[in-house]
């Protein structure tokens, strides 16, 4: 187990996080901090515990042990305050197909109590940023898979949150759309936002992340910047590092 510390202001602090599903330990004594204005990548094979960690971060799952603080708020005791500063784009393309893109985004603005006067402008702004402003009034059921992912990200960002959790944000996107999302993530970091993302695309992690953590069987097995990890493991790219640490066997799982 590695314990990681950072003198910069901490946006996310996970200490001794353990999550059991019956006899199965999905996350095992995870310790991790993510600094403010950092893009952090949580990498791991299928079923390694990434999504369980994110669900614990959002308060959707209760940890079996350990503590999580988001923006200084304890997720167990002050979950509503923690959620107010978080924007979450989950792994599933969780959107309402019968609403338009703009209506989906506005719905989430309303759930975060964004003032009505500001909501339309904010919705248009994020739809513009994810490249969907021309399709904002079309029903999401008519969108392509990539467009749905992008509107899902726009829904997470309508409140201009301090901390953004993106669970596999570019799955199903074509290279152009993926590049657009990457630019958007970089822009978020430049604006001082903290981004925690999970991805299976190693080049994406290498391109975007200041640091990455590789998680396997619920344990953090590597942590550092992509450059540090490549040097440490003598690998030519992050994918090599990943395969060295997690093996080549295909995994099943969530």
């Amino acid at each position, binding site marked *: 187990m590695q314990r990681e510390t950072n003198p910069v202001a901490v946006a996310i602090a996970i200490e001794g996080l353990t999550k059991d599903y019956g006899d199965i330990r999905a996350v095992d004594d995870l310790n991790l901090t993510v600094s403010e204005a950092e893009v952090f990548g949580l990498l791991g094979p299928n079923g390694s515990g990434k999504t369980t960690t994110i669900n614990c971060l*959002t*308060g*959707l799952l209760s940890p079996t042990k350990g503590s999580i603080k988001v923006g200084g708020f304890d997720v167990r005791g002050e979950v*509503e305050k923690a*959620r*107010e500063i*978080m924007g*979450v784009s*989950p*792994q*599933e*393309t*969780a*959107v*309402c197909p*019968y*609403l338009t893109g703009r*209506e989906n985004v506005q*719905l*989430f603005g*309303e*759930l*975060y*109590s964004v003032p009505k006067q500001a909501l339309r402008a904010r919705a248009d702004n994020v739809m513009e940023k994810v490249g969907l402003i021309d399709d904002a009034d079309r*029903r999401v059921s008519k969108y392509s898979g990539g467009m749905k992912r992008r509107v899902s990200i726009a*829904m997470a960002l309508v409140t201009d949150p301090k901390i953004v959790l993106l669970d596999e944000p570019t799955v199903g996107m074509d290279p152009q759309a993926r590049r657009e999302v990457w630019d958007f993530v970089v822009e978020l970091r430049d604006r001082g936002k903290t981004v925690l993302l999970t991805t299976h695309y190693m080049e994406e992690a290498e391109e975007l992340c200041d640091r990455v953590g590789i998680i396997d069987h619920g344990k953090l097995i590597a942590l550092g910047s992509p450059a540090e990890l490549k040097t440490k493991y003598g690998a030519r790219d992050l994918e090599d590092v990943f395969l060295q640490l997690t093996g080549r066997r295909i995994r099943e799982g969530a």
Partner: protein
Amino acid sequence: MRISRAIAMAKKDWKRIIREPAFLFIIILFPVIITVAFGTSFGAVGGSQPSALSVAVVSLGGNSTASNQFLHAMQATGVVKVGPFVDNKTAQSMLSQGQVQAVILLPSSFDSTVESFKAHPSDPGLWTNSTIQVYLDRASVLSDQVVPTVVEQVLGQGILGIKPATQALPFALSTPSVVKVQGQSVFDSFAPGLFAFASIYMIMIVAQSYTTERDNGMLSRILVTPATSGDVVMGSVVSYLVIGLVQALLVFLCVYALGYHPVAGPTAILVGFYIITVFALCNIGFGLITAAVSRSAGAATGISFVFLMPQLFLGTFVGSALSSTAQEAGRFLPAYYVTDALTSLFTRGASITSASVLTDLAVVSASSVVILIVGVQLFKRFGSR
């Protein structure tokens, strides 16, 4: 819990109902179609009178004065359709083929019986008594209730000039009945049950809505915003209460247009609408219970029938045609009390403070709140993930 978040959720549900054809059909169009279908089939469309029963009259004594008088008096009631005299064979053939719902056989002694009564109205010993045979269509629910009564009244008031209920008649009927007709149609007895019938399908919609959003991750996503599960449920309550009210209004307009005119005043009608709206809470609760035990939206559709069908058969207009045992079983279902309350208020003209209406209102309110609470708890415990 914030009301603005609940309203945001409610708006989302309304848009879904309006935009998804299957939902719009089940919640709004289906009740209207059913109401119009029942109204046009059993109601008084096209006039103030119900769809009249057709009756054939056979005069075994030929085209006599008294039998003609009887025929015209029958035609004048407007309750039954009566054509010219036919022979017995033709009449029985028409009856067996459903072309008429009753055959009235006037005996050959019909004229002499009338004359003997008129000559000695207060001396039954001098009457020439006779029997009028009435053959009824067994497939017609109304014929055995309506025709004997009409014949009795026509004989008494139309031919002999007396009230049949207060004085003996020189005629015997083969199937006398005591039911009063007073221009009612079958639809009048169905109409109050149509309100509960329309609302019951909300169970399926609520269950499908929650399971679909759970399956596609939307529900989890909403629950990681500052919105609480209370906001989500309150959003559903707000949206489906409004939808329940819209359903009730549409069904009311349809039944009114189709000839069912409640004898209730505005206050009683408002109380009726209140009861229907409260009943929506019950259906939201059953919908949440269904969603809690269903693993997918498809399963939710099937499982919703567990709650839907008993209420449909025992608690709406269907129940009135069932056995007394089945009707007693209906007393365990909220829909029964909704239909009973609306029948009392709209059809019988009961006061809103009558014991019957207040009991129905109390049962519907209490059971709806309990079922909603059980639904919310079960869904939070087993259904939200």
